[in-house]
């Protein structure tokens, strides 16, 4: 579990580096970039926000897409609240660490004690490397052209790796295809940032009751 966690954190550090570079390239200052990684601390929302801002989208559309993405952490919180012990103060701190990776590492552990260790260990190493990577990326940012190193492709490449395991579920596949199509169709006809917001409509695939789907209720 420790090895898996450290490997994951190292990869996330590299991803954070590309966030730092991309964020500065999108017009954010080093302080703004680092503040995002410390206080927002949910990668997909951060990437979504700077990608919309970088493409010239409005503040509202940048926020909208990023906040819809952030809403999924609420679902992870529901899953984690049954697994974490501790005082209110400790839970308020745990909330900041409730993201894709910590939830995934924790819920796959066999017992409650290891679930808690996995959550806190992943949370702390990930938080450290995410912010370290962001800082180094932000400081490097203005020195290199992200396009020369293909760093603009690092975002979607990382997202492909994140979304791939989810697609083993039939309904997640349907939502992914529909979301992508909405985004493609909406891109030329709506302002920048709006296509991502509209693609959230694809979650309505979930309204229909599953016929026999044993994976229902999983925390991802």
């Amino acid at each position, binding site marked *: 579990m420790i090895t898996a966690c450290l*490997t994951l954190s190292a*990869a*996330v550090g*590299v*991803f954070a580096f*590309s966030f730092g570079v991309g*964020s500065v390239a*999108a017009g954010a200052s080093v302080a*703004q970039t680092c*503040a*995002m990684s410390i*206080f*927002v601390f*949910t990668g*997909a929302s951060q*990437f979504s*926000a700077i*990608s919309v*801002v970088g*493409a010239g989208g409005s*503040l509202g559309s940048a*926020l909208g897409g990023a*906040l*819809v*993405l*952030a809403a*999924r*952490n*609420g679902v992870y*919180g*529901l899953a984690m*609240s049954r697994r*974490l012990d501790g005082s209110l103060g400790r839970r308020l701190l745990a909330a*900041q660490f409730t*993201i894709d990776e910590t939830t995934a590492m924790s819920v796959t552990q066999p017992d409650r004690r290891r679930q808690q260790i996995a959550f806190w260990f992943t949370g702390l190493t990930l938080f450290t490397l995410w912010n370290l990577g962001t800082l180094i990326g932000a400081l490097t940012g203005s020195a290199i052209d992200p396009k*020369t190193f293909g760093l*603009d*492709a690092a975002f979607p*490449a990382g*997202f*492909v*790796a994140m*979304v791939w395991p989810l697609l083993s*579920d039939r*309904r*997640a596949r349907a939502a*992914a295809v*529909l979301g992508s199509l909405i985004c*493609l169709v909406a891109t*030329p006809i709506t*302002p*920048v940032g709006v296509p*991502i917001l509209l*693609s*959230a409509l*694809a979650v*309505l695939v*979930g*309204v229909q009751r599953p016929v026999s789907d044993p994976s229902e209720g*999983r925390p991802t």
Partner: protein
Amino acid sequence: MSWTLVIVLAAGAYFFKVTGLVFLGGRTLPPVLERCLALIPAALISALVVKDTFSSGQNLVLDARAVGIAAATFAAWRRWPLIVVIALGAAVTALVRLVG
């Protein structure tokens, strides 16, 4: 970029996290809502991939990124580690730009 974006996003992101973990706690949501919320990552992250690969502002484009993301998708399909998927996507894109 404005500080408003940073602050509102930070507050909003924490609001969702704390709502699930602390306020709602062990309570369960209506099944239909839970099913829809569970599909957010698949729908939005896929759309982000499409946007960051095939668009430039409001234009749909086909450039070096498409080749890089195809390579990254192959790596993800082969279950290669995250770090390899990212590095491959970036490297292939940079290479195609260099040659093209």
